[in-house]
């Protein structure tokens, strides 16, 4: 049923290369459905409003990543789908090491915490990066003292830097 809903939304949203495509779009629907299931089943997820509105918005927010525009650079999780994941993990570790020397103390702390989580977090039960990032606040005593807004700003800076550094490495 969720797959049907995703398919319906894909048709309705007028996404170039997708909405007007013939066929059942299984190759697009199924990955989206799996990601959606993970998203919905995250422990802190709280649905407000109807499921249809959420799915519609969720897919619309990924339009850039779904649109098949030739020559465009892949964005979002499609970036991950197209790279060697072992290499990417190594690159992330490298970048995080670099960020532990950042001038921004919050970014330093976040990088340290991510690395600590990677070293010790064998039994960490998280399903998405967002969920994991939220967990950092409780994992670090310094970050847990921050207010929500301060933590959001720190996380924002950290994510931006991480994405930028990864893109410099070709990801």
């Amino acid at each position, binding site marked *: 049923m969720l797959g049907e809903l995703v398919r319906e939304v894909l048709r309705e949203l007028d996404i170039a290369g997708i909405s007007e495509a013939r066929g059942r779009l299984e190759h697009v629907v199924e990955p989206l459905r799996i990601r959606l299931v993970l998203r919905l089943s995250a422990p802190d997820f709280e649905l407000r409003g109807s499921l249809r509105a959420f799915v519609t918005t969720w897919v619309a927010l990924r339009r850039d990543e779904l649109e098949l525009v030739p020559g465009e650079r892949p964005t*979002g999780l499609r970036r*991950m789908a197209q790279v060697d994941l072992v290499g990417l993990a190594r690159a992330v570790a490298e970048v995080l090491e670099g960020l532990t020397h950042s001038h921004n103390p919050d970014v330093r702390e976040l990088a340290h915490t991510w690395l600590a989580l990677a070293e010790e977090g064998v039994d960490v039960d998280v399903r998405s990066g967002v969920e994991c990032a939220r967990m950092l606040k409780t994992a670090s005593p310094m970050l847990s003292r921050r207010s929500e807004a301060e933590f959001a700003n720190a*996380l924002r800076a950290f994510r931006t830097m991480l994405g930028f550094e990864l893109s410099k490495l070709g990801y």
Partner: protein
Amino acid sequence: MGAHKILLLAAEDAFEFERWREAGPVTAEIDPETAAAEIVEYEALGLPLPRELDGLRRELEFAPAVREAIRSSTSVLRRNGRAEVSALVGLGPQGMLPWGAGGLDPRLLMMMDPRMAAQAGMPAEPRTRPSDSRAKSDSRRAGRATVVVEPERDLASPAPSPARGGAVEPELVDEPDDDDRDDDDDRDDEFEPPPRQRRASPPAARARKPDRARARASDPDEDDDDSLVAIRPAPSRDQTNTIILAAVSLVAVLALLWIAFGKDDQEPVVAQAGATPLPVVNPPVQPAPQAQVQPLAVVDPMLSDPAPASDPRPVRTGGLRGSSSSVGVASKPAAGGVNPFASYNAAVADGKPAAAGGPTPAPAPTPTPAPAEAVPAPAEAVPAPAPAPEPLPEPELTKSKMTPPIREAITNKVGDLQRCYNDALVGKPDLEGRVVFTISIDQDGVVKKVDVSKDAVGYGVASCASKKIRGWTLPSAGIPIIFDLPFDFQQPKG
């Protein structure tokens, strides 16, 4: 989970964040995706956003991609009429609650995959049996800690819980089962919407428990036992439908009679209004309208809101979406008490007719003109005891000129139309001519309707271009407007 996976999660988080990067410092406690979806639902329904969501929207819309996503999903939901007011009203936040092994809302589990439901240990049939009213009241007592799946309810539009922030009055989501009276009211009141006064039984009867059995015996319509409600549909619905249908047909007959016999007398009424009280000119017709003044007042506004009376499912919002007049909305709380929705009436009445869109159930337009003619005479003849609510006229949109920002935005999007033309040129190289589109946009600038008022090109160019235009979102003019867009398709020179 290995270090490798956790590092990949960091990358995933950073990549996912890119689409939110320009969306301002969204606080970490807010999930921007669910907030955006909630904003979309409010906007699709044409409801004003609660204050905190309004602020958040401004924050989110800093990112063009997010702004575009919100607009396009809003227009999709509007076009299809699939936004659900009940999801906003009845539920408030739907927590993903500790339920079974999966820790996931069973409704969503069932939507996702039956296998996952099985993994989570969820039984195939609804958890609460209709007769198990005790379990039901217990689960309600737990408030958001348990979600009861009821057989009649739609999966995507679950059980009602207190309205959030008084955004919309719960009465609008007309749930048919009147089962909000449990034996232990003192504990339930915290989690349930205020009891409605729809039934004739006095509120005092609720306090005196021993009297309830007697009251139930005396009132065949009393169905506050959960098990009864869940098993059989309320028998009074058919009666209500019959009464409404009878009233509607009676009004139609009266309107016809009035048109047939009453028109001749209309001019003398106007002419003599200042002179002497009018003698009864048409005795056979006059008494009937007097008797029907009350039904008129009830039926007329509700014609646009038939769903709550007839639809056994509480979640469909056809009632609200259909009732573009504030009369229909305002007339309900008269029976229900406080109406937190009252302040929204003006906005809904102003904005909605254009914004409703989609397959809105609109039975109103057909019968409306006849009562509009028929009502004034009885109202003059009888000093109306309750002022009959006049049906609000549909706001007549006249064509206006494009505003400069709209013109500029269209100029930027002309490529879309040009592509349609270029495609057609392949089949007919000498194709050219003028097409005039009549475009209706709503107050947000979302294109609602595109008509082709002149097509001198043919070859499907106009229809292709209309389809493209339908996907546009133009700068808002603040109000819904209609304008003509003439477009000359000419072959490239040289």
